[in-house]
């Protein structure tokens, strides 16, 4: 056997450090740059968690799910209920008690989002396989209905989702202020990415997902039921959106029924920039979006929203199918 030739395209991997380094002279202060960078990476990791399932759903079955935001909102609202019922744990000064409270909220949010995701796939997405226009309309309709149901259950007003005691505040590194929660969000995001990367690269299910993203007809011709695989990916993707909803809610420290719709735009920017169906591309896209939002929010606040759309346009001019286009698509 000959040695393996590297198939890894490293150029996209350089985008995140290049973007960060380009921002440094504009910001001027290294401490401020570090603070903004950690905030951007945390935001990017949370967006990645929310987006990674959606990109695989599109890659596997060509399904444009504009209702993904409802799972995010559901996760965030489940967290408000769980954490308000665990105030002894969230107000404790002991980190482990805080972690148990947040962990419980995350687990229940994922379970709730997964169950609703299963129903969403069965009753909303399945009847419109292969029909993109109908998918867009019906999934957006599903999200609107979901938001209304959330308003019925939790009310239409903003609900506070404060950080647990030990997760508040910052660590000082020189004059740079690194918020504890943002550092934790980076760690959780890396763990989710590592688990996904391991599953996709080291397990047969992961192999089937990667193959299905490229050529689902051939996967079926090899004897595998891709519909079952797709339902599994949809449910896991919904659960991850629920997890992302908890983290996004804690990041903003409040929750509104439109939280999912608000972040949906960023998620679609991320999966388009990354290459539809590519989780590695989604990670790079999410980190760039997070960094860009924080840098421009500091440097040119009025351009914050426009900056990510401009970033996407620039990436697509360079690589029209995203940074990691999936073969055979």
């Amino acid at each position: 056997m000959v040695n393996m030739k590297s198939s890894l395209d490293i150029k996209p991997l350089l985008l995140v450090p290049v973007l960060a380094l380009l921002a440094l002279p504009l910001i001027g202060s290294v401490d401020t740059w570090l603070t903004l960078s950690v905030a951007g990476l945390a935001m990017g990791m949370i967006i990645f968690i929310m987006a990674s399932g959606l990109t695989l759903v599109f890659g596997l079955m060509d399904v444009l799910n504009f209702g993904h935001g409802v799972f995010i909102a559901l996760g965030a609202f489940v967290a408000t209920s769980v954490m308000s019922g665990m105030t002894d744990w969230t107000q404790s000064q002991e980190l482990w008690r805080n972690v148990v409270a947040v962990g419980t909220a995350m687990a229940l949010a994922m379970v709730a989002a997964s169950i609703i995701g299963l129903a969403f796939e069965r009753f909303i997405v399945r009847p419109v396989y292969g029909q993109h226009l109908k998918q867009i309309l019906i999934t957006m309709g599903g999200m609107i209905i979901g938001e209304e149901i959330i308003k019925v259950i939790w009310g239409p007003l903003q609900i506070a989702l404060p950080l647990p005691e030990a997760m508040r505040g910052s660590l000082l590194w020189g004059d740079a202020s690194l918020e504890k929660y943002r550092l934790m969000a980076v760690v959780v995001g890396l763990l989710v990415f590592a688990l996904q990367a391991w599953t996709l690269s080291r397990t047969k299910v992961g192999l089937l997902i990667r193959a299905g993203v490229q050529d689902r007809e051939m996967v079926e011709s090899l004897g595998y039921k891709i519909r079952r695989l797709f339902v599994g990916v949809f449910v896991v993707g919904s659960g991850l959106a629920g997890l992302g909803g908890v983290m996004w809610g804690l990041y903003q420290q409040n929750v509104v029924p439109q939280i999912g719709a608000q972040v949906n735009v960023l998620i679609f920017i991320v999966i388009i920039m990354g290459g539809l169906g590519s989780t590695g591309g989604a990670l790079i896209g999410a980190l760039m979006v997070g960094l860009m939002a924080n840098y421009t929010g500091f440097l040119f606040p009025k351009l914050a929203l426009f900056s990510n759309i401009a970033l996407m346009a620039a990436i697509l001019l360079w690589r029209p199918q995203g940074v990691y286009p999936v073969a055979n698509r």
Partner: protein
Amino acid sequence: MPSNVLLDLKEVHTHIGAYHILHGVNLQIPRGELTLLLGRNGAGKTTTLRTIMGLWQASQGSVHFNGHDITHMATPDIASLNIAYVPENMGIFSDLTVEENMLLAARKASHAQQMDTERLAWIYAMFPAVEKFWHHPAGKLSGGQKQMMAVARAMVEPRDLLIVDEPSKGLAPAIVQNMIEAFQTMKASGVSILLVEQNIHFAQQLGDSVAVMDNGRVIHAGSMAALSADPALQQSLLGLAL
């Protein structure tokens, strides 16, 4: 169904959208033989294979495989009856390595280490490129290497029927000869083979039986030897003499 017939298509019609492609195909694939499906472009050969695999559903008629009615079965269920299929575009997963492509086809194996090593050695002997480029991304292989890998992948576990759509298409003569020898080895192992082929000299060296299609119908079925020995029949069916 006669016991020596493995695959039996009776009066199969297939529509793709508004187009009526197959107009009552009758085709029998004998067990343990290599059958060639010949015909000009657009005759309906690929549609016949896709209909057998359930990738396009027959609108009329029946398809029986090994005693099972597979006419309206889903593709994964048909494949699970031990039918391997190599489409015209080879169906290679370009982003995966050769090893990963092979592992996908090995339905009983969860990891590469669980693949049948004796079977792999048999495959390597037929297709040395598969072993040589085992850890390479399949998308980086040459056209001939991809075709070898596609056929090798189809045979990574024992199958009752191997269906290949145009295995010699675009291949260099040396690779075509390698393919011919590989199909002869596979046939000797007992697998039944159905090949769609346009390269008539490739077909002549391999086929036990032959079916010729035109306008969505089988217009001739018989032995390859009989067709080879009858220039007038060749001329009338294929527009050329072998």
